[in-house]
């Protein structure tokens, strides 16, 4: 019986191909939009999550700056008020697990005939702990290297690839701003940061070497910022106030003076970014769902027309013994069929569009089975929901009136 009804639903659709297609089109566009939007939203979420995972956990960044010069407040980082010594002092705080002073700068790096413009980061071995970064090959530099300002370098993946291709860079010599450095290790890949930077496009060198031999500075020992990792998420508030107190003390700030540094809770910022991505993902899905709703209303509209057009047919069917539920099932199946076919094509279109967006516009996309199943489920539900009213209307027709209908 249900087989016969499916065949009839198929037949009825075939009788009005253009109309069925246009109705499906609404569904197709709706489903494709949902799939595509979910793919993009989840892609964005995935990127953020990955960046957060690569950032390191329970992280603070302490920026120098906010000093006042002649009544004019300078922006954060304007004056180098933080030093490597500040970093060492912070490391002794009980709530702090690891610390790294960071003195970065752009530089041209040369290896043989190859050269590459990258970011050279002067720091301490603590940097790898703070960033949860491991060494892929070779070794990290040590505190001894920092003390004696050795010319050693750790290469990020991108730099290693661009300078050495498939060769192993460990033991090779590179030139940073024309002074020679020995590559002692290659960092494991990290991927993109929250603001979309390639974190593997960097070279790590001892902070002292950076200060004295590469960038030079009118403020000896100064660093751009300090990264600090709290012992746990729970210790973060304590760590923040301890650091602030310590730095004020070390910088001899009077009680009424503003901080000449700025402590930012990176983990909180990252979580906010993750939340934003999640909300965006949901919003995209919700907006796309509206088009599913519109598709559903299209189905309802066409089914109502169809019921009216086929009033006489319904009358005939009732006269020869169709029960109300037979008529109901027939029209419901038709609506679901339109909805499902539209949905299947929509899923294909949506996946294709997402893949195209990824390939052509390098938008990050994540297509999950759950999203496809969700789209299917919603489409089937839309078919039933919007198909029910017209089908019920058909089933409730009075046979004599339906038979008299011209």
């Amino acid at each position, binding site marked *: *019986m249900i*087989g*016969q009804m499916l065949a009839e639903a198929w*037949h*009825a659709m075939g*009788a009005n191909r253009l109309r069925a297609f246009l109705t499906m089109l609404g569904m197709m566009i709706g489903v494709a939009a949902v799939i595509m939007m979910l793919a993009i939203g989840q892609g964005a979420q995935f990127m953020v999550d990955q960046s957060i995972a690569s950032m390191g956990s329970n992280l603070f960044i302490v920026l120098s700056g906010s000093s006042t010069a002649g009544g004019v407040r300078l922006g954060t980082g304007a004056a180098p008020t933080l030093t490597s010594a500040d970093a060492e002092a912070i490391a002794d705080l009980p709530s702090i697990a690891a610390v790294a002073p960071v003195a970065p700068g752009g530089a041209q790096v040369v290896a043989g005939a190859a050269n590459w413009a990258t970011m050279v980061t002067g720091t301490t071995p603590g940097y790898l702990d703070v960033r949860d970064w491991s060494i892929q090959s070779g070794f990290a530099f040590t505190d001894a290297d920092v003390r004696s300002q050795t010319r050693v370098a750790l290469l990020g993946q991108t730099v290693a690839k661009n300078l050495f291709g498939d060769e192993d860079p460990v033991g090779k010599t590179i030139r940073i701003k024309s002074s020679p450095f020995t590559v002692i290790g290659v960092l494991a890949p990290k991927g993109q940061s929250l603001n979309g930077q390639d974190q593997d496009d960097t070279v790590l060198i001892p902070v002292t070497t950076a200060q004295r031999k590469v960038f030079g500075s009118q403020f000896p020992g100064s660093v751009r910022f300090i990264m600090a990792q709290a012992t746990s998420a729970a210790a973060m508030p304590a760590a923040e106030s301890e650091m602030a107190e310590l730095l004020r003390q070390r910088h001899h700030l009077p009680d009424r003076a503003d901080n000449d540094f700025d402590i930012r809770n990176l983990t909180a910022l990252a979580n906010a970014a993750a939340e934003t991505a999640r909300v965006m993902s949901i919003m995209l899905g919700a907006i796309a769902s509206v088009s599913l709703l519109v598709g559903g209303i299209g189905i309802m509209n066409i089914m109502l027309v169809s019921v009216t057009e086929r009033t*006489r*047919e319904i*009358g*005939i*069917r*009732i*006269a*020869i*013994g*169709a*029960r*109300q539920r*037979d008529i109901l099932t027939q029209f419901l199946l038709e609506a679901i069929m339109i909805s499902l076919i539209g949905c299947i094509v929509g899923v294909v279109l949506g996946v294709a569009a997402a893949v195209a967006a990824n390939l052509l516009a390098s938008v990050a996309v994540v297509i999950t089975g759950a999203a496809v199943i969700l789209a299917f489920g919603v489409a089937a539900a839309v078919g039933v929901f919007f198909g029910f009213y017209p089908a019920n209307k058909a089933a409730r027709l*009075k*046979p*004599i009136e339906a*038979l008299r209908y011209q």
Partner: protein
Amino acid sequence: MADEPLIRIEHLYKEYETDAGPVPVLADVNLIVQRSEFLAIMGPSGSGKSTFMNVVGCLDLPTSGKYFLDGRDVGTLDADQLAHLRNTVIGFVFQGFNLLPRASVTDNVALPLVYAGIGREARSRRAVELLAKVGLAPFADYAPGRISGGQQQRVAIARAMVGNPQIILADEPTGNLDMKTSYEIMDLFTQLNADGITIVLVTHEPDIATYAKRLVRFVDGRITHDGAVSAPAIAGAGA
């Protein structure tokens, strides 16, 4: 139930609800139809013949009065039970044929069996059998729009017969057909009646009425004649 008549109607009234209030159409109709009868219903236009047929066919319910079909009190049945009666006990033939234009002749004939829950194979076997019986075997795959009116009415009769009904209700089955075709259709009904099927048909045409064995005449919603198919009775109904 062998002694129970196929149709027993007692004090049947039917009113239509309209904006201007209830319109009485049938008043105190009493009728008994035994199995294998061949009944013609005549009467002036608007006298309530079609209304009566709809009630007999379980397409509409009386306003008051009793109607027993095949021993069952129709007034006590629910919608599904009425559908079952229409599917198994009754076969309809309409003036306008009422075939589904998009289904083939075979599928049209087989349609009632879909609602009887019979499988595809068995359905088409039975449909082909009946098409042969009404002489339309070569047209099995045709669309109804591509065969003549007389042929369409044969298809409709085959459809009415497909569920092995006990009674065929035909409301002006020859109303849209020419004389020659009408007689062919009436010969078919006569043959079915000879096979034991009860036939009740409405007609305005005296020579069609002569095929029947009993004549019922309606005037203003009441039965004014019930008896032999005599010339005066037919003449009276011709008005």
